[in-house]
């Protein structure tokens, strides 16, 4: 069954020739991406946990932004109708406007605070999840290093994996947050809110949220990935999980 004679022939090349130390070692992006995506699709449980962190964080962010866009749309509508009914002079409306401006500012500050906090929590969650995912794979990392992987290959594989998860998670999260918030507003203010809001503005927030999700996942994965890559292969191989 085993053809050792031919196997030996296949292996002969350098056995007799000797060792010249060189330094050419590669991992093309194409292959790195393939391996990373394979890791995401085949370890669905672990990927789902990491992804859930992003989904929740981005969903919250998006719900805040959707709320903002919808309220802005409603206010604009109100201001328009108020303007058309009572043509008031400049002096009379000034104190009212001032109040509205102040309230707007404090609301914006509160929202920014919420967003930052939620993203921080989300970031810590992803880091933790990636750390677990890396620890589970110490042995695999050690094996890859034995096969000639540089530290940077390991980092690259984990970063691609994390960004892929970050992207998928933030797309799902953005849709989820947006849809839920929109439904809430529709129930409260009537179905017309969708028509009143600025969809172009909303689109911008979508792109921003997805971008932010990817960046978050990337940043959160750097520390665990670097930690994994820097282990000496012997130590990585010896770990029992």
């Amino acid at each position, binding site marked *: 069954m085993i053809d050792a004679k031919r196997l030996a022939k296949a292996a002969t090349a350098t056995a007799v020739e000797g060792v010249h130390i060189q330094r050419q070692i590669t991992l093309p992006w194409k292959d790195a991406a393939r391996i990373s995506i394979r890791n995401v699709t085949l370890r669905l449980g672990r990927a789902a946990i990491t992804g859930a962190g992003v989904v929740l964080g981005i969903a919250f962010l998006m719900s805040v932004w959707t709320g903002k866009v919808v309220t802005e749309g409603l206010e604009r509508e109100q201001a328009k109708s108020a303007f058309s009914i009572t043509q008031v002079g400049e002096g009379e409306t000034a104190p009212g406007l001032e109040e509205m401006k102040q309230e707007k500012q404090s609301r914006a500050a509160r929202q920014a605070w919420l967003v930052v906090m939620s993203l921080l929590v989300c970031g810590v969650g992803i880091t933790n999840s990636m750390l677990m995912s890396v620890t589970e794979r110490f042995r695999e990392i050690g094996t890859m290093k034995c096969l000639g992987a*540089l530290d940077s290959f390991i980092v690259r594989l984990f970063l691609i994996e994390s960004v892929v998860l970050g992207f998928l998670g933030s797309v799902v999260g953005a849709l989820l947050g947006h849809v839920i918030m929109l439904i809430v507003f529709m129930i409260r203010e009537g179905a017309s809110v969708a028509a009143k809001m600025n969809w172009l503005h909303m689109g911008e927030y979508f792109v921003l949220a997805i971008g932010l999700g990817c960046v978050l996942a990337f940043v959160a994965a750097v520390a665990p990935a670097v930690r994994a890559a820097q282990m000496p292969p012997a130590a990585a191989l010896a770990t029992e999980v």
Partner: protein
Amino acid sequence: MARIECPECHYVIETTGIVTVCPECKADMTKAMEEAGRVERRVRGSIAKDDSVTTHEFIVRTKGLKKIYRMGEVEVPALRGVDLDIRRGEYLSIMGPSGSGKSTLFNMVGGLDKPSEGTCFIEEVDMAQLDAFELAWLRCRKIGYIFQSFNLIPVMTALENVTLPMIFAGMSTDEMMERGRMLLELVGLGGRLHHKPFELSGGQQQRVAVARALANSPAIILADEPTGNLDLQTGKEIIDLLKELNAESGVTIISATHDLKMIDASDRIVHIRDGEIERIELRSELDLQIGHLAGAEGG
């Protein structure tokens, strides 16, 4: 091959390339070799810049190798100064009870860990002087590893496992697939190219590991307890496979083991105890001893 005589002790070595030190009396043999026209000067630890063939009689040499592990406050010596010369094309077994330091020695020789003291040379190149790129290149192209627990990448198929080191070596996809397929066919797994490791038996997984170790035609195969997780029959198959590879292709095999079946296959057996070399046996001597014992019993 050239026969070169040591100017001091007149020991004759047969070498395909350069050994600058007499293996018997450690005298400098450079002059004798220059005369034989086979000298190539090379700075130790630097990258060979030309393509000329440099071969040394000893593919691996260790000098005063020590390794101390730190367990909290306590220092635990795993190796207490090991001097070992391993010849090109040799089948060497490192034997010893668990905890004797054989795996540690194996890790040093394979460039998987750094010694606390002492040096390890591969082809007269001090491994401590290699940078990360050179070390990775060495692991990728020149050393094939086989482990007790197979260590295949679980999310990859047999074929992908075998081709992974070829990706690192920069082989083209077509070439890679062809060679991977061939290697797996040769170890008798031609019908299981696209199976994942968990779909294969232990013996099959180890055969995938052997094929992977051969991916870039290494000069050395390091096998750490390759039969440890296998049943008797499968273990024997793997040993036979390694032996045949050694005999046919001249690849140097270094195997850490406490499997007595290995003795039969190896040229030399290094016994390690408490981090030191206890004794080194040649297989020929061993046969003699066994024969002698049998004779004594008979008489």
